């Protein structure tokens, strides 16, 4: 239940918050202290296990996705979803308390009525800061299948929620109605050939949304053209190499995550073996393709047997869109510098991550070990996987969720106090000294 199922930084980064959701339905919010460390700010139970009596289905409490809303007022808002229900939470601070009753004393005992001769209006007195999370809205009963993603529109008025076959559009203020904008459900379920894996809104253009499917395609829809977006505006798909076709090629090409770059020009997609960067203006092939763990290509059969081949890895952009990060097995995660085309493999585990320690790059070798620190493919632990990663929208701070541990790394400060430019160079040499390591208990 403590296994982290999603990690998300606050969008603006002005108030440094980081939220994680776990399999037990809990949301934990971390706040960055002035010294740069993240501490737990608030913890609350967002979802409870439920049972759908009509369909005899258990609904897990696991938090599938968290999305922060742009700031409204001093309070913070986030959307959290499990398989069926999306909830809007408000996290607010309170530092005043009302005091003074007419008919009772402060302990709550009734006063003698004869002593009550004047009316007393309660007064507010300062108290210790209290952080409260309260559910503001519950968006339920709109999805027949499991919700895999939610995404807030740049108009800050609407958001989408996607399940395996449909995408719904909601108004944040209206809980009893949503509009179905994409429906892939065929009339006959036997004709079903693909499912939606992720959907996301464009960061600036309120009418654009991208969704990817299990067949490895990503579609871009323009909501201006029509109320129903079943017809896509663009289809991003790379022609499969016929020489590489195998039983697994469709499974490994399934897109597990899609992220728009902060600039809005590129799309980042993650499939089982690679991350790809697409230019929105070029549909037929990605502009960049990075191999995450190509050495697994020969081991797909055993990965299929252990179901690992269906793992859904997430990917992330850094604040300036110059570096890409994604997770892998054996508690490794990978970073790719787009300009220098350099890449690095790092490990997030309790053994290597000492406070303030600098992470050492790892290497996985296929054949014989060349160095002491190298790890052979056969000794990779496929149970230790990093599925959920997030990069701070402005700074070089990353959050890595490995099972029930959350690791937060920061670019090490250079002597003049400025952060290093996020080159892989810096990644390798002094990037990522561990700031905090949290265990979800």
């Amino acid at each position, binding site marked *: 239940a403590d296994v982290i199922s999603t990690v998300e930084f606050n969008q603006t980064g002005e108030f440094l918050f980081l939220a994680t959701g776990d399999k037990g339905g809990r949301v934990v919010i971390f706040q960055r202290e002035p010294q740069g460390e993240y501490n737990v700010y608030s913890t609350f139970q967002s979802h409870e296990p439920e049972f759908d009596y009509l369909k005899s289905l258990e609904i897990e409490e696991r938090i599938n996705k968290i999305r922060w809303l742009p700031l409204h007022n001093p309070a913070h808002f986030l959307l959290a979803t499990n398989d069926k229900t999306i909830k809007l939470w408000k996290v607010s601070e309170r530092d005043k308390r009302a005091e003074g009753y007419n008919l009772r004393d402060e302990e709550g005992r009734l006063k003698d009525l004869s002593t009550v*001769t004047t009316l007393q209006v309660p007064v507010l007195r300062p108290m210790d800061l209290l952080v409260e999370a309260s559910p503001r809205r519950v968006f339920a009963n709109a999805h027949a299948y499991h919700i895999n993603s939610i995404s807030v529109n740049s108009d800050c008025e609407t958001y989408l929620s996607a399940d395996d076959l449909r995408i719904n559009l909601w108004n944040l203020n209206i809980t009893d109605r949503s509009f179905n904008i994409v429906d892939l459900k065929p009339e006959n379920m036997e004709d079903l050939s693909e499912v939606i894996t992720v959907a996301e809104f464009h960061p600036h253009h309120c009418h654009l949304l991208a969704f990817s499917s299990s067949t490895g395609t990503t579609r871009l829809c323009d909501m201006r053209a029509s109320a129903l977006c079943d017809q896509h505006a663009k289809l991003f798909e790379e022609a499969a190499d016929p020489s590489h076709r195998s039983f697994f090629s469709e499974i490994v090409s399934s897109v597990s995550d899609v992220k728009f770059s902060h600039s809005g020009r590129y799309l980042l997609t993650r499939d089982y073996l690679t991350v790809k960067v697409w230019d929105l203006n070029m549909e037929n092939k990605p502009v960049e393709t990075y191999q995450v763990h190509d050495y697994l290509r020969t081991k797909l059969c055993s990965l299929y047997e252990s179901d690992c081949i269906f793992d859904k890895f997430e990917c992330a952009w850094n604040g300036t869109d110059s570096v890409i990060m994604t997770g892998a097995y054996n508690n490794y995660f990978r970073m790719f510098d787009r300009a220098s085309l350099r890449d690095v493999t790092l490990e997030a585990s309790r053994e290597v991550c000492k406070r303030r320690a600098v992470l050492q790059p790892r290497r996985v070798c296929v054949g014989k070990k060349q160095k002491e620190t190298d790890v052979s493919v056969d000794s990779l632990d496929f149970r230790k996987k990093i599925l959920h990663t997030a990069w701070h929208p402005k700074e070089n701070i990353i959050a890595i969720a490995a099972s029930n541990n959350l690791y937060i790394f920061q670019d090490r400060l250079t002597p003049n106090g400025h952060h290093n430019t996020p080159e892989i160079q810096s990644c390798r040499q002094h990037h990522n000294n561990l700031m905090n390591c949290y265990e979800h208990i």
Partner: protein
Amino acid sequence: GNRAAQPGTTQRAEGDDSLYPIAVLIDELRNEDVQLRLNSIKKLSTIALALGVERTRTELLPFLTDTIYDEDEVLLALAEQLGSFTVLVGGPEFVHCLLPPLESLATVEETVVRDKAVESLQKISQEHSPVDLEVHFVPLVKRLASGDWFTSRTSACGLFSVCYPRVSSTVKAEIRQHFRTLCSDDTPMVRRAASSKLGEFAKVLELDYVKSDIIPLFTALASDEQDSVRLLAVEAGVSIATLLPQEDLEDLVMPTLRQAAEDKSWRVRYMVADKFSELQKAVGPEITKNDLVPAFQNLLKDCEAEVRTAAANKVKVFCESLPEDSRETIIMTHILPCVKELVSDTNQHVKSALASVIMGLSTILGKDNTVEHLLPLFLVQLKDEYPEVRLNIISNLDCVNEVIGIRQLSQSLLPAIVELAEDAKWRVRLAIIEYMPLLAGQLGVEFFDEKLNSLCMAWLIDHVYAIREAATCNLMKLVEKFGAEWAQNTIVPKVLGMANDSNYLHRMTTLFCINALSEVCGQEITTKHMLPVVLKMSTDQVANVRFNVARCLQKIGPVLDSSALQADVKPVLEKLATDQDMDVKYFALEAISGMYPFISLTFQHISSQKHFNSPLYCFFFSFSPCCLGYRRLHCVIVKFFKHYLWMSCIYFIYSCIYLFIWSTCTFLKGSSDAHFPQVDMIL
């Protein structure tokens, strides 16, 4: 004590007894139960009255200002209350004391609360003196307009227009500047708010400033990158167009509006279509002819069904408001071709929207054009596969009737209606039945007898109960329209004839019809014609018919005179009360106790309805598979316990016993009737 020293004591001079309820109210302002807090907030005026104006200002309002942590419903009530608090703080002189709490309410995240706070602020702004307005109100608007959070800035947008007319010209300039800033705010939420308030603000501005300030803002908002901002600008454009003199419209507003009608986003075009008649009014006949007609054509042909639906809805109003001299030509040459295409649209909502207004065109076009051009379209829509489309046509037949006359209508449209009335889907038939009284009213008695009467009678023997039920109800409405005499001649003989039908369902329909018709037909027809038939049916061999006779007699009782009640009805009911079937017995007893209360006191409690109305009773009988059969049993049980047990226990014990009996009966799988004697014995 020293109460006299306290301010505001005049209201509570009567002593501590009057203090207590107020003290409770104040304490409940911070009760843990939301409902109690809400109640307390709703009585805020009582609290304020008790505290007096000074303590309200110095103590209550500061407390309320910081209470913004509360639930939305409490805040909403608070925002509403404060709008009418002026007297309670000491009149217009002190009205500015209400600004701090409303200001904090105007910054909360919940839209409804903010809107209510803004509404209250608008209200109390009128109670400010011009000086107070500049000293207190305008600074508040400025604070909100330059607030850190978008919530306060959106609230500010709604406040400019109320203070603008009443301030000095320097302050006016500042206000305009603030509004400009908000129109180019970073967040789409604020731009949306500014866009939606633009028209309202333009109304209070001097015409020169409308031209110099508002037009550029409007143009900018109408080409915003966010769809949601642009679509709100359309409405503002309509308001602005009403303010400008005709000669300026072409240069200042039309380019932007034209662009909106061809916007890439269907939502913006939808908004244009939705506001089309307002727009038409605002821009006047010349521009309508030159610009709006082609724009309207395009909207009717839009690629998005939502837009076509909105445009189709406006067809009639648009055509009606066209300038008289060229109306017919424009409709015939420009609008009608588009309408013809819409009739066979692929989207049902488009067709349905069109069907609801298309009949209105006939009055505008006159008889010849209607017959030649519109009737074929009506016919196509009447045969549409979607019932909603057909219904919309039928429900508007009267306007065509006026234009082309009944004969024409009957020849062309009636066959289609009759076809629908015999549709294989019972829901379609049901919908048609519901329109029958309307149609009858439109077509008149003569025509109805000739064409539709047989149809109405045929429904009475429909094989779907819902249709038979609707048909009886329909008969009642027809009689209401055409009168009792007509009923006696045309309907009553046919209805009564069914009493001899071999099918007991049809015989029951007779009874149901009598239930419905007795009142509208009056005493004479009921006593002379209906009653004998009902009485005769009391010897029917089917129990369902017999107990419905009992129910029917109870129903028509009030219509009959007392001699008939005593001489004819009572013996029959008494006989039914000794019937073998328990349901018949039950309803006969109920009828007797309902109609002859003085001679049947013994049955009083049965029909007193007290027990039958209890939730528990309803609970059981709604779940019970054979509820009718157990009703009498229930009575016996209640009667039994009534004398021996505390009333409040009855339902509990009764429910246990009832469940036990029910499960035993079910378990034994015998016919339920067979087991009742046993049950009685147990008791």
